[in-house]
């Protein structure tokens, strides 16, 4: 049975207070070093989320700065009902979608724009993949393929996949960060995963011997 590999992450038991709570409290009291520590802890994640959604490095840099500045100015509004990191991610998603909207002035970009199509829910390619598809390509080439493939997803799907599968937020945290219901997240996540699978299949599937021969003879 295939298994999704879970990255090792620091976890907090349900009855333990997350260390961020104390840092946020100190930052609210004007402790700059506490806020600086929060920036150091999460700037990589916020940058990565922004770059995945906008697909633009300069935008991701600007957004990372905007997110922490906004978080600092609205620190009093953070009630601690969610993780501080989820609160930051929510700001990052909103800022990133706003950037996309500005870029496509004639077209609205929202989490709802690409959910009306059933495309991506129906698998079409049933060829088996190589056991270790990562080994088919060099590191640089593989990264290019993965970037190009995720870039082709509609922004709403790309965002859900990024938060749930790349950033490893739980389904509930993803729903909270996106302002969506849990069933909506599950539905979009399924479509995003299946669309990515379909697009990657052309690179990773096993060629049948006749196709391989045909390819060589050209």
């Amino acid at each position, binding site marked *: *049975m*295939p*298994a*999704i*590999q879970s*990255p090792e992450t620091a976890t907090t038991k349900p009855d333990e207070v997350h260390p961020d709570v104390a840092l946020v409290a100190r930052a609210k009291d004007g402790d*700059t070093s506490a*806020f*600086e520590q929060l*920036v*150091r802890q999460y*700037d*990589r994640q916020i*940058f*990565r989320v922004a*770059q*995945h959604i906008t697909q633009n*490095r300069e935008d*991701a*840099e600007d957004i*990372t*700065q905007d997110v*922490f*500045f906004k978080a*600092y100015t609205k620190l009093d509004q953070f009630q601690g009902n969610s993780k501080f990191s989820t609160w930051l991610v929510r700001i990052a998603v909103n800022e990133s979608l706003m950037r996309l909207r500005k870029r496509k002035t004639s077209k609205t970009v929202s989490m709802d724009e690409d959910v009306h199509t059933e495309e991506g*829910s129906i*698998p079409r390619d*049933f*060829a*088996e*993949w190589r056991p270790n*598809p*990562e080994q088919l390509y060099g590191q640089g080439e*593989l*990264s290019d393929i*993965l*970037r190009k493939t*995720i870039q082709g997803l509609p922004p709403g799907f790309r965002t859900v*996949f990024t938060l749930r*599968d*790349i950033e*490893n937020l739980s*389904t509930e945290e993803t729903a909270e960060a996106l302002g969506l219901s849990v069933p909506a997240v*599950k539905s979009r*996540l*399924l479509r995003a*995963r*299946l669309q*990515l*699978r379909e697009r*990657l*299949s052309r690179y*990773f*599937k096993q060629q049948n011997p006749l196709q391989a021969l045909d390819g060589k003879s050209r």
Partner: protein
Amino acid sequence: MTCTDFLAKLTDFFDGTVPPELLAEVEEHIAECHHCEVVLDSTTKTINIYRNQELYDFPPELQHRLEASIMARCFGPRPTK
């Protein structure tokens, strides 16, 4: 269980939240339907590949520059010694 039923349960299957009474049906379908077995295997690999690759580098120079800009924006420029 049909292939459509299986797809509807795929996200819960990955999350490990398929109710026990349905889990046996899902696993039975995977064992019997080669297409769904392939979809499950390749979707699992899709998730793992993206999870294992750092697609966008975040070099220390960029991190230091961003942190300095953020702190300056929030608290003003730091006094030079």
